[in-house]
């Protein structure tokens, strides 16, 4: 029907909702990367000598490494000397939100995440990262009463050097991979969490990321330690403004769970995916890994990935402690010309370890969505169990879905199950729902939300609502 195609076109032409640029005075370094830049960065941040050396060591490893190209993604070569490795709002440090640049607060408000509102309503402590420097950390005192440390990693390096030195790089060593090495050399800021023995963190800890300065690579570093018998749920969510140049983002997240501890890490990722022709957009090359170190420890990753031009991301769990548990729940959406190669690694080392993988890929437009997962049962991992389920949903006929499951089983007592399905949203399904009074966009949203239900159930309540909205926005105009 002619009318409809007009509507769909209009919707398809809606621009990235969170695309705006905030005019805040920035302090930036010259482009390029060398030892001097790293020293300058370290000095700027007032870091101790050991940290500077740690960075330099990582930088020298990085120099010897090559950018990996095994993922099922394609992009023009990145010129690492054409990137600015530091950008920070000029006025700082801030003791409270009142001292923050009003422009900055406005930017947060545009994103629909006014910090004050968050504090009051949601009971969420927010460590807001605006470009590279933490601007405001809330709820800190309340958490401090319980002995919980929730601060920027820069602050942790200064205030809690023993903890940082013990754990930083213990799960993702600087030599782990090209992007992890780069991050280790130049990470600008990020979050640090420590939950003491036996403490159950009473609120969801949350960080909102935002890439703002032009041509500034963003290198976040997050370190979360759950001591024996503790529990924490951590939320990560982000949006970024429209940019013509591709922006590199190479974060590292390390999680450590000791005996009987549990870490739940949830992500809603909505960075600028580029325009319909694939121009612009974020390159998201992230290393996320958890070490279930203690007995009966548990690490759970839940991610909803809708943004970025390219996603290269495999949140993993090393199941080292006996009876430890690793989980990975993922929804990855690609539309237009987005490319995602994402999945997980579950490395079973301890006895009676269990892992669950539920991956839901949704491809629309001319995008490419790959699931890549490794389940490895080492020789000592008696009675390890894994269940994997990888589903792909195709919208339209120009997109692609790929599944690359790798299995390495070195112990005969292991039990590993893998299920995979591929389905397609057909025009017949859409018409059926249309005929019941449901619009095309709502129809897709209903089908997709039904398909993702298992993963959404793993998200904290308010995040689940946000995620479901995000999916609808991401898939707008995908069926025409």
């Amino acid at each position, binding site marked *: *029907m002619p*009318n*409809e195609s007009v*509507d769909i076109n209009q919707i398809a032409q809606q621009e990235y909702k969170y695309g705006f640029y905030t005019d805040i005075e920035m302090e930036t370094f010259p482009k390029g990367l060398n030892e001097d830049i790293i020293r300058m960065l370290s000095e700027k941040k007032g870091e101790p000598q050991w940290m500077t050396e740690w960075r330099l060591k990582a930088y020298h490893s990085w120099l010897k490494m090559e950018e990996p190209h095994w993922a099922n993604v394609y992009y023009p070569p990145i010129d690492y000397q054409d990137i600015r490795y530091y950008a920070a709002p000029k006025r700082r440090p801030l003791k409270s939100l009142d001292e923050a640049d009003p422009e900055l607060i406005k930017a947060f408000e545009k994103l629909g995440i006014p910090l004050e509102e968050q504090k009051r309503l949601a009971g969420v402590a927010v460590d807001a990262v605006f470009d590279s420097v933490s601007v405001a950390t809330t709820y800190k005192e309340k958490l401090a009463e319980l002995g919980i440390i929730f601060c920027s990693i820069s602050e942790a390096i200064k205030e809690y050097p023993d903890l940082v030195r013990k754990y930083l790089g213990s799960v993702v060593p600087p030599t782990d991979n090209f992007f992890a090495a780069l991050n280790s050399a130049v990470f600008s800021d990020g979050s640090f969490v420590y939950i003491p023995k036996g403490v159950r963190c009473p609120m969801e800890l949350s960080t909102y990321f935002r890439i703002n300065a032009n041509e500034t690579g963003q290198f976040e570093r997050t370190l979360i330690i759950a001591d024996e018998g503790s529990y924490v749920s951590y939320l990560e969510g982000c949006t970024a403004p429209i940019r013509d140049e591709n922006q590199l983002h190479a974060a590292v997240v390390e999680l450590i769970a000791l005996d009987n501890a549990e870490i739940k890490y949830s992500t809603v990722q909505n960075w600028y995916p580029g325009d319909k022709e694939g121009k612009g957009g974020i390159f998201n090359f992230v290393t996320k890994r958890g070490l279930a170190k203690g007995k009966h420890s548990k690490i759970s990753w839940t991610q909803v990935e809708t943004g970025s031009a390219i996603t290269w991301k495999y949140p993993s769990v090393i199941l080292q402690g006996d009876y430890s548990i690793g989980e990975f729940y993922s929804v990855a959406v690609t539309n237009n010309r987005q490319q995602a190669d994402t999945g997980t690694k579950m490395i079973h080392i301890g006895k009676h370890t269990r892992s669950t993988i539920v991956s839901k890929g949704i491809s629309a437009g001319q995008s490419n969505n790959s699931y890549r997962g490794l389940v490895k049962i080492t020789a000592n991992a008696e009675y390890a169990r894994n269940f994997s389920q990888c589903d792909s949903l195709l919208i339209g006929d120009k997109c692609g879905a790929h599944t690359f499951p790798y299995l390495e089983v070195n112990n005969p007592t292991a039990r590993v199950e893998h299920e995979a399905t591929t*389905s397609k949203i*057909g*025009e*017949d*399904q859409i*018409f*059926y*729902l*249309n*005929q*019941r*009074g*449901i*619009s*095309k966009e*709502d129809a897709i949203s*209903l*089908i997709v*939300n*039904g*398909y993702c*239900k298992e993963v959404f159930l793993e998200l904290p309540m308010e995040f689940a609502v946000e995620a479901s909205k995000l999916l609808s926005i991401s898939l707008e105009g995908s069926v025409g």
Partner: protein
Amino acid sequence: MLKIKDLVVKVEDKEILKGVNLEVNTGEVHAIMGPNGSGKSTLANVIAGKEGYEIVSGEIWYKDINLLELPPEERAKLGIFLAFQYPVEIPGISNATLLKTAINEIRKARGEEELDAMEFLSLMREKMKLLEMTEEMLSRSVNAGFSGGEKKRNEIFQMLMLEPKLAVLDETDSGLDIDALKIVANGVNLLRQDMSDRAIIVVTHYQRLLNYIIPDFVHVLYNGRIVKSGNKELALELEAKGYDWLKSEDKVTV
């Protein structure tokens, strides 16, 4: 209520409807019969607004609204309902979710308040009982793993829930055994209890269904045209003679 004028429709360059004229007034039940390939389903789909049909010429008016200008969901909101010949399976969406969304969309369009969960549930229970359906069907995904009979019954259930103004049943009887057929017909007759602002079009290949849903008018669609119209007796005549005798009549009218 519904006025179709000289409707010519092509599918992939092939003319399927070659000038259909049909008028359906409030309170009437019309049966459209015809052999396979005569264009019955095309007509039903074009009324509902399915894509993939090229409207070459002609008009479809619903009350005083030009239907051809509206997307299918807007037509549905006006009260037009199509019971599908082949209801699709939609994994992941439960029957209850589909119905709740559909009912509230339609209510919203009519300026009525949305039904709350309790009202909705009691309404569903009431209608399910009438169709001898079990409640576990509500939590199952739409038509997923349903037998042919269950799918058709589910269509009628949705129809009763949505209480359409103009209901079009596209070969709802096909693939049904006699017991299921009676239940489906019973559902249609329930809708028929109040025809004050309602009309029903029953598209069927066989006369069988019309034993249970007595039509006010019967039309024979043949080779893209309505070649004969009459009352319920026409259906019996078709049952006795088959469709072959119409071929000669068709030539006469051309």
